[in-house]
Every structure is written in structure tokens, then in C-alpha cells.
């Protein structure tokens, strides 16, 4: 039976009042912790995803869209570029590595990315089991995608056209076989099904031939001939190569000079555009940052109002319990101990509010995570409190202490005799 227990019992003696005085605090803490975590984790995850890539070269259009689609895989591509044009950039002296990527199909909403082995290296992805792809229609699967889709080595799946799971246009005649599974990397690669570039070309070449170029039955024979020619005549291979397209080229510079010269050169002299992920993402975060700041501002305002509501609630408590406080004085408790009693109650209140708010914030984060995962393949980690949140707890408790001190002035003026004699 100590003061803290008494403070706790006092606090919960009127549950409705308790809820009322906690409501604002809970709301404010929920908002602040949720927004902080969300922006921190998204920033962290995006930074990790764009880190291996200095420049993206793709079809002309919005540079932000190009970065979002080709690097973060959360938007549709701007279009395709010619492979030989892209290859011309590869040989530029400032270019360290250039990885072509091609995509446009999905399996149950998970993107199928045609690329080269270097793509794995750039994200530091290693195999958990199996091997890397060696020929067309062999796929290496990212860890999250494998888990969600339940894919194992040896499994076969068919891609469907487009980037949405709802697509019904299935490439049934080109099934993929899973040959390798990747370790989790915490990057976008976890969400991808990766194959070689030829798989994408073959799947689409076939579609194009069937549906557009050769609609009639009698042309089927010619079609077969064409494929035969393809293999035997070098000229024709080159011709075909010129027509081959990729979605974009992911470039890592060898020299910082590349950053200065190459984007301008590409944008001015070619049909392609160059976008810098770091720059584009910074621009995007600048826009989102205003929103984050606004929400945080609102949350802080609510926090101050909640401090005021705790103050009012404690003031009311102290008035209602005047006689009990006087009684405690006759038990030998000095004014300091009574002050401590109210302080404990205020701090408990603030701590409880913070705890509930924090838990709600995490709950909201789980909700946001499942939304982001289904929409964009991003998984938010639900972690314990971080340093900023501990600081925020400190601020909350400080506000509670101020509220207690303001509310408890009447304790010092308590007239025991008169209070106890009053009915």
C-alpha cells in the first residue's frame, strides 16, 4: 500500500473520466509515432533501393516516373528504349556498370524482371538455394515474393501481361521454372521474380507475332521459316537486335564527372531520358515532407491540448478529493507526499496515454504495412521504441509534470480542519 498504488487506484476509480482525459494524448501520440515511423522506414527503404543506382536511362517522360518504375518498381514504365541505343551508353568512359532491365509482366502481382546477373550483384543478393538462371524462362525468386507466392525450386508458373495481378492476359505457352531462391536483402529485389532479358523478349515476341504480325493461318508456315532464318543468317540477327527493346538501363558511374555530364548529354542528344534517382527521390520527399511536417504540427498541437486536458482532469480530481487529501494529512502525510501522490497520478496518466498511443501507432503501422505490401510490395518493420520516441515520451511526461504543478497549488493551501468538518 504505497503512494504509487494509491495513485493508480485513484486514477482508475473513474474509468470514464480516465478515458476522456487520455483520449487526446492517445490520439496525439498515435499520430506522431505513426508518421515518424512511416517516413523513417520508407526513407530508409527507398535509400537502400536507390543506393546501387546513380542514373536510370529510359524512354522520355516523367523522370520521377522512370525512377519509381525502374528502380523502386512501384509505377508503370515510361516506355521502352532500343537495346542498341542503350548499349552505346554502356561504353562511355564514365560509366562503371550498366544493367539493362526489362519488365511488363507479373505473376499474381509480383513483377517479373528480365535483367543480367549484375543486377543481383548490385543489390548484394545471394542465393539461399538453387542456382542463377542459365537460359530463358528460368527464374530466380526474391525472398518475400517466394514466401507470399509459396514458390519453391522446381515450381512452374505462368506470367501474365501487365503489372497488375488482375490481368487476365496470360502467357500460357511460356511457363517459367523456379531455379533459385534469394536470401532476404531488405531491398526491392525481395519482391521480384528475376529472369534473363531473353525470356521477356521471347514471351512478347511470341505474343506480337501471334496477335499482330501474323494473324492468318497460312502465315504460320512462314513464321516457322522466319525463325529458321533467324538462326542461320548473321545479318538478320543484327536486324532483329536493333529491334530489341529494354525498359531501361540502370547505370552506376565510374567517375563523379559522369553525374555532371552524362544526364545532360543523354537528354539533349538521344531519344532517351536520363533520371537521377537520388535527385528525384529527394524532390519527392521534399513534397511529402511538407505533409509530414503538417501532420506532426497538428499532432504537437493536440499534445499541448492534451496536456491542458490532463491539467483540467487533475484539477477536478484534486477538488473532488479535497477531503481525502485532508484525511491523508491526518494520517501523517505532509504536503510533499500529497504532491507526490498527484504527481504519480499525472505521470501514470501520461505514461498510460503514451503507451496506448504508441501501441495504436504500431497497430496503424501494421495496417499501413499490409496495405503497402499488397499495393507496392513494401514491408514495414514493426520494431520497439526508438530514440526519438523515448524523447517524445520524455516530452509527454514533462507536460504532465507541468500540468500537475499547475493543478496542485490548492494542496499547499489545504485547510484540513475546515475541509474535514465540511459535509
Amino acid at each position, binding site marked *: 500500500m504505497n503512494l504509487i498504488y494509491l495513485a493508480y487506484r485513484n486514477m482508475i476509480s473513474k474509468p470514464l473520466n480516465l478515458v476522456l482525459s487520455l483520449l487526446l494524448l492517445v490520439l496525439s501520440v498515435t499520430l506522431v509515432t505513426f508518421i515518424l515511423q512511416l517516413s523513417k522506414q520508407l526513407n530508409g527503404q527507398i535509400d537502400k533501393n536507390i543506393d546501387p543506382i546513380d542514373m536510370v536511362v529510359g524512354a522520355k517522360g516523367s523522370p520521377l516516373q522512370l525512377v519509381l518504375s525502374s528502380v523502386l518498381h512501384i509505377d508503370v514504365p515510361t516506355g521502352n528504349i532500343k537495346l542498341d541505343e542503350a548499349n552505346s551508353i554502356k561504353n562511355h568512359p564514365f560509366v562503371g556498370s550498366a544493367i539493362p532491365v526489362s519488365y511488363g509482366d507479373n505473376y499474381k502481382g509480383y513483377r517479373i524482371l528480365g535483367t543480367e546477373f549484375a543486377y543481383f550483384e548490385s543489390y548484394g543478393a545471394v542465393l539461399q538455394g538453387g542456382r542463377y538462371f542459365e537460359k530463358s524462362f528460368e527464374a530466380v525468386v526474391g525472398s518475400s515474393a517466394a514466401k507470399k507466392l509459396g514458390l519453391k525450386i522446381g515450381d512452374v508458373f505462368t506470367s501474365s501481361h501487365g503489372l497488375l495481378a488482375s490481368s487476365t492476359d496470360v502467357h500460357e505457352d511460356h511457363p517459367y521454372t523456379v531455379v533459385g531462391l534469394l536470401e532476404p536483402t531488405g531491398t526491392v529485389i525481395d519482391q521480384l521474380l528475376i529472369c534473363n532479358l531473353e525470356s521477356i523478349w521471347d514471351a512478347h515476341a511470341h505474343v506480337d507475332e501471334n496477335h499482330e504480325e501474323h494473324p492468318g493461318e497460312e502465315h504460320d508456315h512462314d513464321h516457322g521459316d522466319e525463325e529458321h532464318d533467324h538462326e542461320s543468317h548473321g545479318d538478320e540477327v543484327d536486324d532483329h537486335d536493333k529491334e530489341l527493346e529494354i525498359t531501361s538501363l540502370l547505370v552506376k558511374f565510374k567517375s563523379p564527372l559522369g553525374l555532371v555530364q552524362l544526364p545532360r548529354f543523354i537528354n539533349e542528344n538521344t531519344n532517351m531520358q536520363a533520371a537521377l534517382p537520388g535527385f528525384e527521390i529527394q524532390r519527392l520527399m521534399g513534397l511529402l515532407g511538407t505533409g509530414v511536417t503538417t501532420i506532426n504540427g497538428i499532432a504537437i498541437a493536440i499534445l499541448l491540448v492534451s496536456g491542458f486536458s490532463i491539467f483540467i482532469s487533475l484539477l477536478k480530481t484534486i477538488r473532488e478529493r479535497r477531503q481525502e487529501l485532508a484525511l*491523508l494529512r491526518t*494520517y*501523517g*502525510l505532509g504536503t510533499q507526499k500529497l504532491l507526490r501522490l498527484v504527481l504519480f497520478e499525472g505521470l501514470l496518466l501520461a505514461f498510460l496515454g503514451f503507451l496506448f498511443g504508441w501501441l495504436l501507432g504500431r497497430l496503424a503501422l501494421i495496417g499501413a504495412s499490409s496495405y503497402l505490401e499488397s499495393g507496392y510490395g513494401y514491408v514495414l518493420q514493426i520494431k520497439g521504441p526508438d530514440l526519438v520516441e523515448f524523447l517524445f515520451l520524455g516530452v509527454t511526461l514533462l507536460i504532465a509534470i507541468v500540468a500537475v504543478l499547475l493543478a496542485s497549488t490548492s494542496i499547499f493551501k489545504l485547510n484540513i*480542519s475546515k475541509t474535514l468538518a465540511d459535509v
Partner: protein
Amino acid sequence: MVKTVGLNFAYPGEQSFNFPDIDLVPGEHLLLLGPSGIGKTTLLHLLSGILPASAGKIVIDTTEITALDRKSLDKFRGANVGLIFQQYHFIKSLNVDENLQLRQHFPKKIKDKERRYRLAERLGLSGQLKKKVSQLSQGQQQRLAIAQGVIHQPKVVFADEPTSNLDDTNCDNVVQLLKDEADISKSSLVIITHDQRVSQHFSNQIVL
């Protein structure tokens, strides 16, 4: 045990009370009898040190409480004085047993479950220990108030009009309970009342 000399109290701008000197030896009980409006409650508050006297001195046990500073007075009162008020005061958020625990805890930090349970048994509160105070009947609340006054075995117990709302039978019972509990706790009992029915129980009386 309780000794007063030239005790006087004046409410600011109102009437002033002069009280007769009291000299109570340890183990003895005392009845202070007087009509309404002559400052009985005031005297009790003076004696228990929750109201500072305007003049005169009060000695309880061997301590002159009129000379103590506020902090020491709080401590002394908590340890050595038991109070039974005319209006009952309890901590409403605690149950009956917790109210008694609280009184044991401050300021001597005693934990004596057995004494609480024995006392509750003698006062007919055994079945009420886990109840909220607000669920008790008027009579049970009165007995809880008595328990609160003696649970911590104070040197002296002051009771203010403990029988004012009781019929004759209950009046006798309550006074007997008070005397018994005071004896068990080895406390001196000082009752202050206008109720003539109480006078037959006390040989030691002062008429105010």
C-alpha cells in the same frame, strides 16, 4: 497522556473559544460533554493538531505538539493520534481492507494482516473487507470509521460525536466498542459529544 494549558482559539473576526485545561493520565478515557456551538469540534481539531491554537499549549504523551513545525506535527499525528470524525472520511477508490492497510502503512509502514482481520471480525466487518466503502451501510461505515481510528494503535484516539445518529441500543454498543478497542490498542480514548447518553459510560468527564 493529554494535557492542555490555557487553550484558546479564535476564528478570524469571529468569536473566540477558551477551553478548560485537561490532564489525562495514560490508559484513562475521557468524555468531553457540552452543548452544540461551544466549539467542540474545534477543540478536537486543536487537540489532534490539525488546527493550530491561538494561545495555550497541548502536550500529547510527552510531546508538546503546539511547539512542533508542520512537518513534524504531520508525522507525530500520523503515528500517535487516531481520529474518528463526525462525518466519515474514507478513500473512495480503495476497498475496506485497503483503507485499513493505508492507515497502517502511514506513517509507521506497518503490515499486520492479522490485526486488520481480527479487528474487522470484532467490528462485524469480516464479510465487507473486499467491498467498496460506498457499498457499506451507515452502521458498517461507522464501525469502519472506528477501525480507522484504532488500527494503527495510536497513543490517543479522539472521537467526534460518534453516537449522534444512533438509537439507544446502538449508542451503547458503539461506545462499548470504542472503549474495548481503545483498551485493546492500549490507547487513551477521548470522546467529545453533546449526547448525554454517553455520560454513564465514563467516570472521567469534563463538562464544557
